[in-house]
């Protein structure tokens, strides 16, 4: 298995030559100096082996592999100046761009040579071992076994490290009632999973190390053991049953809310469209008016059906503001395509589906102010964001969420405008001539 073999040399050379021509097509057009420089440095590489390794040390930041041999690659690098002469630079792109790119490619090339050199050294080492009559096959096997122990130790430490650092960064306090329950379940699941993860990996990598091949050993013929297999079918089954039950009751508690409680909650509708959210408060009648997408006009962007009197007092929220410790029932839908109504702090998510209403009811427990105090971050805000791919601005489709006290909420809501504006009323009155006077009064009152 010799690295130096003529056919290989040739292919490597041709390959490298073609790559360099392709890359340098225009890169040196106006950069003859730096090209010369590049050739200079690489020329040294070709000259002495020590230079190669020296260069390589600095390049070791990135990683890559190949099995070219030193001579071949030196040859290929030497081929680059031939290419300098041809091709003019592409207009519009700064030639420096190509140069920089080429440096990275070169760096990678050098790295490949380093790998090849190491391969070579290993080969020589193996040869000497063989000549000294020492075993030359098992040592590689032992190295892999050792590496598994290294992987185990660093891996376990890595898991610990990310739990501590990234974990701390990612677990935020749930600001809703059901969120707290979910977090407990999350923690229980995490504890179970971590235990399993650690134990199985200790076994996996530990066995790999402990039972690495050795001469004169035979594996233990052990095709099955029904008892053990039953145990490790039943134990996971039990653990999973517990998790399922836990999850099932939580899920029902969140999604299966009695009619009565549904009615008592504050009703808010959130409608998604590319790439914004509109928030509709039910107004004093506590009921949200119907929509009909066919009624959409530039003025009536949501297509609210003002035949439905429930819609007359509906208010548009500039943001989502909800009172603390009061159940709120969100009714979510979409004007155009799928979106997802997602508030990470609340552990709340439900898709916005066109032509269909979805609901999520929850009770916030921590006001924005309190949360800021807790976090010691006075610019902190809850935010609702879109979690279902919806187009170019999917990454920036958000609405501020504020949890406030009851009084603040009322005060704020009073300032929010009605959907049924002056202009819309005119438009609407054209179509709706005979109106109940009581309704007219109601309208007057709301304004």
């Amino acid at each position, binding site marked *: 298995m010799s690295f130096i073999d003529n056919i290989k040399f040739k292919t490597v050379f041709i390959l490298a030559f073609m790559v360099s021509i392709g890359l340098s097509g225009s890169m040196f057009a106006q950069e003859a100096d730096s090209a010369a420089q590049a050739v200079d440095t690489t020329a040294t590489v070709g000259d002495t082996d020590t230079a190669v390794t020296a260069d390589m040390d600095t390049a070791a930041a990135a990683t890559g*592999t190949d099995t070219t041999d030193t001579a071949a690659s030196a040859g290929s690098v030497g081929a680059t100046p031939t290419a300098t002469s041809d091709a003019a630079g592409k207009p519009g792109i700064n030639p420096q761009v190509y140069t920089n790119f080429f440096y990275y490619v070169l760096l990678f090339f050098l790295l490949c040579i380093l790998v090849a050199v190491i391969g070579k050294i290993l080969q020589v080492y193996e040869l000497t071992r063989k000549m000294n009559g020492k075993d030359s096959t098992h040592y590689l096997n032992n190295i892999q076994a050792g590496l598994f122990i290294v992987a185990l130790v660093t891996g376990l430490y890595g898991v610990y490290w990310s739990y501590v650092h990234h974990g701390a960064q990612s677990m935020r306090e749930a600001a809703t009632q059901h969120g707290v329950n979910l977090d407990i*379940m999350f923690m229980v699941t995490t504890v179970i999973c971590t235990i399993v*993860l650690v134990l199985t990996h200790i076994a996996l990598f530990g066995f790999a190390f402990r039972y690495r091949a050795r001469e004169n050993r035979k594996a233990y013929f052990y*095709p099955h053991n029904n008892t053990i297999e039953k145990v490790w079918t039943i134990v996971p089954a039990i653990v999973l049953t517990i998790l399922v039950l836990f999850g*099932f009751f939580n899920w029902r508690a969140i999604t299966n809310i009695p009619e009565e409680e549904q009615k008592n909650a504050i009703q808010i509708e959130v409608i998604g469209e590319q790439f914004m959210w509109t928030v509709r408060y039910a107004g004093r009648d506590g009921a949200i008016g119907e929509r009909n997408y066919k009624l959409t006009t530039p003025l009536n962007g949501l297509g609210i059906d003002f035949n439905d009197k429930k819609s007359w007092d509906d208010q548009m929220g500039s943001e989502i503001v909800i009172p603390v410790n009061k159940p709120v029932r969100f009714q979510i839908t979409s004007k*155009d395509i799928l979106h*997802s109504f997602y508030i990470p702090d609340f552990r709340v998510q439900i898709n916005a589906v066109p032509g269909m209403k979805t609901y999520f009811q929850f009770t916030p427990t921590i006001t924005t102010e309190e949360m800021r105090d807790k976090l010691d971050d006075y610019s902190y805000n809850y935010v609702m*964001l879109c979690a279902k*791919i919806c187009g170019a601005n999917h990454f920036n489709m958000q609405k501020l969420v504020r949890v406030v006290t009851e009084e603040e909420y009322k005060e704020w809501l009073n300032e929010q405008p009605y959907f049924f504006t002056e202009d819309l009323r005119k438009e609407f009155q054209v179509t709706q001539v005979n109106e109940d006077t009581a309704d007219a009064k109601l309208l007057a009152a709301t304004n």
Partner: protein
Amino acid sequence: MSSITSAHPADHHGEHGHHHESFLSKYVFSQDHKMIAKQFLITGIVMAVFAMFLSILFRLQLAWPDKEFPILEVFLGKWAEGGRISPDFFLALVTIHGTIMVFFVLTAGLSGTFANLLIPYQLGARDMASPFMNMLSYWFFFTACIVMISSFFVESGPASAGWTVYPPLSAVPTAISGSAMGMTLWLISMTLFIASQVLGGINYISTVLNMRAKGMDLWKMPLTIWALFLTAIVGLLSFPVLVSAVVLLIFDRSFGTSFYLSDLVVQGQILPNEGGSPILFQHLFWFLGHPEVYIVLMPALGLTSEVISTNSRKPIFGYHAMVYSLIGITILSFIVWGHHMFVTGMNPFLGGVFMITTLIIAVPSAVKSFNYLATLWRGNIRFTPAMLFAIGMVSFFISGGLTGLYLGNSALDIALHDTYFVVAHFHLVMGSASIFGMLCGVYHWFPKLFGRMMNEKLGYLHFWLTFAGAYLVFFPMHFMGIDGVPRRYYAFTEFPFMEKWISVNVFITWAAIIAALGQVAFLWNFFSSIRFGKRATQNPWGSNTLEWTTGVKHIHGNWPGELPTVYRWPYDYSKPGHHEDFIPQTVPFSETMSSNLPHDFEGNVEAERIQREWELANRPQAEKEAE
């Protein structure tokens, strides 16, 4: 056209069986299962490299959202104006990356390669049941690849609604530019792809059922075959459902129907569609989509079983349990699709039901993991590169599978759905585990495919770079997801809470780049070993299965003379009493009297009697010698 079929008489298969073959019928329109396997493999590798390159492009964007990479403009033109990838194109990259990886690499590339290679070889058949369909299968796949890649050359860009192509986004071209021509090409490509899968699947199933060698009853089949067989069944039952989903979507897009569309006002335009439901598409898609993840995973599990057993020099622990858990997974995989839809507005009661079925499917998966561990225990483990990848596969299968317990729990999924937690989960359990299974297969069966060995040391380098790289890339993503960072986000710059993750993104991207460069070690190793690798011996790993009883040189019909006869299961490794640490399936019990166990005879009274007599005659003597 080659005239070789499975029924071809054996004596025609001399060393020079290819006399009436042109280049075209040998290398291009080949009907030989080994050549088709190579075609699938190399196409799969090319597609994998392409998809990996796409992922590096969008990883650059995620790590350095404000930085310019002018070199990108050189290659991508208007999609990376000023050296910054545009949001539309970002989504296109993500979509095509996901599509190619899941379907083209890990479905066709994985099953296509190893089902074609191993089903006839390990079962002792001369070729597939229908070599012609087999060839068609490859060419449909190849065309699908070309169509998919060609979508990069249309003006409005490739499909960009995510690999799940949920309508209405994918149905309404005004919603996103990728849903114009690009989406049409995506749908055409997938239709071709499904045709390929169905043709292949029928073939695999009928071959396994009908063309097993003498003595190869179902319970003597290697786990690879079990896995590939069950995978084909899953694919055959689920892919047609994707066809219907795709066809209805084509109708909605091109013929004005409203299967998935209703009540839409897109960009101020009221659309005429009424009465459809986007949820319908999700049901249809995931009815395939979930089984699909097992289509991706099960072959990898099968290959891993074989490689772990061979290289631990031990029988696979709990062979029957392994088969039953595969069967369990096969069946259960059809009734869990709803776990992708907990928060999509599906009836919440259904969500509860799907949670239960989902967590049940975790049981067979757990059994498999434990059985792998038990197989390693007290083995005599040889770390070939294939073995390393098999161990890596088990590691990913466990670490990725565990996070399934969170996502399968509908209550926890509320906060995790469509976040980076999901990205981390499926990249570990489906992405990395299957890719590792596939690579383990490539390293292990390379001598069978090409008659040469791959370079071991490069294989080691490849493994450690990829193994570390995959964990470094995907593990931190869990935490982003827990913090609530949604997936398919172009930049983390618009939300204060995401800013802390940008530095992590930089780290991930570097890890991804290093791991991607590490693949050069594989590519070099693979392609140069085809020509220049050390020549393989007939049975380089000391394996029991039938493919290693064929010659190194490929011939039509696989075995020059008669087909082999099978006498025993494939896992007689290190059997006590035998002088070698493996006994191929073709060795009759009469030749291994010193190692036979009562269990081996499956209640055959006559055989048991002969064995007893032999033992009476020989044991005492052996014991005497020992003293």
